[in-house]
């Protein structure tokens, strides 16, 4: 850290020309041509005038943008300032920099430039981007910024190169287990698709029959259609089950999860064997999920959420897709996560029942109520409203949480159940939210934001009594330090 180069620097001047060339198709070709052709015939003077004016404007604005963009590598932070009218100063603490990558697109290669991306482990949009500097400067920056954080290389160097790592199997699926999972992997979507396809085929068949056999066959056809409908349903059901089994077999065949010091290795797949490595320290939280039917029969899915990296865009990784409670506990025990404990979990406020009834019943009532206006058959869908209300009655007893020694633990869901283990060190921000209704009911939702989350389900504590929610948020915030 001798030469930090504390003076602000600008990007390479050739960047202006590169951006000008990149923007040319959208700015310099289309608008002048459009203007030129505005009348009945082509006006070359108008088109050229527009071309010159736009070119000048683009060059000036690109140059201004370049002039106002500076970066400074300080002792403690990288400071990026940009913006002509809206001045923005971004400071990236050097301790936060995970990696520095150099990208060279075709244009950058032509101009001998490189884009430097300073990765901090946050989302893509919030990183530092230097577009573009000379290749030499890019390499200098990378060396300089990496030198601050030598931890990663030291860890890698610590491992003895010749010793075989101790690897043990944590969880594996037998063929029988894979097939069993396949039966539950039956999806309604498949059913709908297959049914739709066959139904449209059936219509064609019916049409042809009417045409060929005439009026006299009408009754027979009606009976046949009813029978055909039943048959189609059975066939679709069967096909759905088979499709589920085949899909699961292709994906999960030979599922093996092994653990060696510092990381998990998961291998699975019949035709494409996929192998992924999950480093222990990238694990953000643990989730045990039980499906509506398979969960009642004692089957669990264990997944972990990992720090979003380039190789795992989904965020969550299945460690054990179809495990008994005992096996699930063993998998969790192999991770750095603490075990999920059912005892001592606190329920949320009784108001949760009311809000769940609203949240689940109201959309159903509205959807079928409105659809019923157009297709009266859909009025029957309103029968589902009491069902969601009944489920809501159980929501509260199934939504509990507790603050353990090192983690927040939350369970939620009546039919489909989820147990969350959120270590304190994974918590990024905490938010206490109170909607209009929640304020009337004196409850609040505590949202726990973690890295790499995606999809619908989050380890939030919904509708805790206000004082309990405040205490929870405060306690969690205090434990981050």
């Amino acid at each position, binding site marked *: 850290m001798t030469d930090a180069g504390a003076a602000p620097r600008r990007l390479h001047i050739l960047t202006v020309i590169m951006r000008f060339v990149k923007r040319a198709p959208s700015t310099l070709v289309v608008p002048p041509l459009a203007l030129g052709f505005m009348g009945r015939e082509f006006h070359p003077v108008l088109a050229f005038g527009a071309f010159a004016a736009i070119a000048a404007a683009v060059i000036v604005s690109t140059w201004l943008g370049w002039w106002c963009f500076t970066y400074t590598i300080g002792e*403690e*932070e990288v400071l990026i300032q940009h*913006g002509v*009218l*809206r*001045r*923005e*100063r*971004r*400071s*990236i*603490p*050097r*301790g*936060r920099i995970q990696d520095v990558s150099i990208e060279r697109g075709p244009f950058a290669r032509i101009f001998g430039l490189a884009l430097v991306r300073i990765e*901090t*482990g*946050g*989302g893509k949009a*919030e990183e*530092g981007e230097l577009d573009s500097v000379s290749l030499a400067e890019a390499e200098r920056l990378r060396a300089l910024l990496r030198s601050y954080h030598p931890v990663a290389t030291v860890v890698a160097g610590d491992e003895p190169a010749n010793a075989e790592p101790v690897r043990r199997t944590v969880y594996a699926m037998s063929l029988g287990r894979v097939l069993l999972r396949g039966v539950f992997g039956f999806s309604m979507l498949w059913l709908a698709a297959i049914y739709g396809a066959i139904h449209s085929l059936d219509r064609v068949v019916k049409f042809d029959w009417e045409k060929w056999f005439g009026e006299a066959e009408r009754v027979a056809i009606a009976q046949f259609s009813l029978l055909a409908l039943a048959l189609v349903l059975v066939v679709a059901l069967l096909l759905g089950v088979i499709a589920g089994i085949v899909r699961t077999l292709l994906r999960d065949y030979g599922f093996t999860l092994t653990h060696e010091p510092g990381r998990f290795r998961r291998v699975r797949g019949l035709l494409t064997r996929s192998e992924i490595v999950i480093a222990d320290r990238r694990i953000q939280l643990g989730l045990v999920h039980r499906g509506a039917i398979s969960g009642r029969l004692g089957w669990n899915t264990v997944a972990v959420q990992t*720090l979003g990296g380039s190789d795992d865009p989904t*965020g969550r990784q299945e460690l054990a897709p179809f495990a008994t409670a005992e096996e699930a506990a063993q998998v969790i025990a192999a991770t750095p996560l603490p075990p999920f404990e059912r005892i001592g979990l606190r329920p949320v406020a009784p108001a949760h029942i009311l809000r769940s009834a609203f949240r689940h019943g109201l959309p159903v009532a509205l959807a079928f109520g409105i659809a019923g206006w157009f297709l009266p058959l859909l009025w029957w869908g309103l029968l589902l409203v009491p069902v969601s209300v009944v489920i809501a009655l159980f929501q509260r007893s199934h939504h509990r949480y507790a603050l353990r020694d090192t983690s927040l633990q939350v369970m939620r869901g009546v039919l489909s159940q989820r147990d969350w283990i959120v270590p304190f060190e994974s*918590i*990024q*921000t*905490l*938010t*206490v*939210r*109170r*909607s*209009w209704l929640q*304020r009337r009911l004196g409850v609040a939702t505590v*949202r726990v*934001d*973690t*890295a*790499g*989350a*995606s999809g619908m389900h*989050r380890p939030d504590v919904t509708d805790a009594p*206000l004082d309990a929610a*405040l205490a929870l*948020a*405060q306690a969690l*915030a205090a434990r*981050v*330090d």
Partner: protein
Amino acid sequence: MTLSFVPLTPLERGQLHVIRLRAIRTALILLAAAIAAEIFVPDLPMHGVILGPVLLLALWITVFAPGRRWRRWGYAFTGSELHVEYGLLTRVHTIVPVLRVQHIDVSQDVLERLFGVATLVLHTAGSDGNIVVLPGVSRTTAEEIRDAIRQRIGSAAHD
């Protein structure tokens, strides 16, 4: 009523003007669209069926809403956490532990510069709430908070 975490500081008075001017900008666009609709939409049952409601809406967002929204904002910096609270219908109180901050932006657009306020943006590694925005603080306050956070992260990284 604020949540009883910490005493919150209100935003700068200038931010009220920023909110109001932005609302006026939105209202003008809405009114222009409504007037255009009144002129060009054929077979309106009577004059003002579009303009009337839009006028009321414009009145609400420029005259009544800005003050209420401005009053709902509050923040507190405790040294180890930044608290930000806002929201008219849904009340939101976010806590950012300083040690989780990845990087910090301080920005000022033309309007903000005119009224002497700035926006502080904290980025964390989270997924939904990874960007926490605190508008309407003076530039010095924003920079003080930024420097304090930076120092805190820096000293933690050296441990």
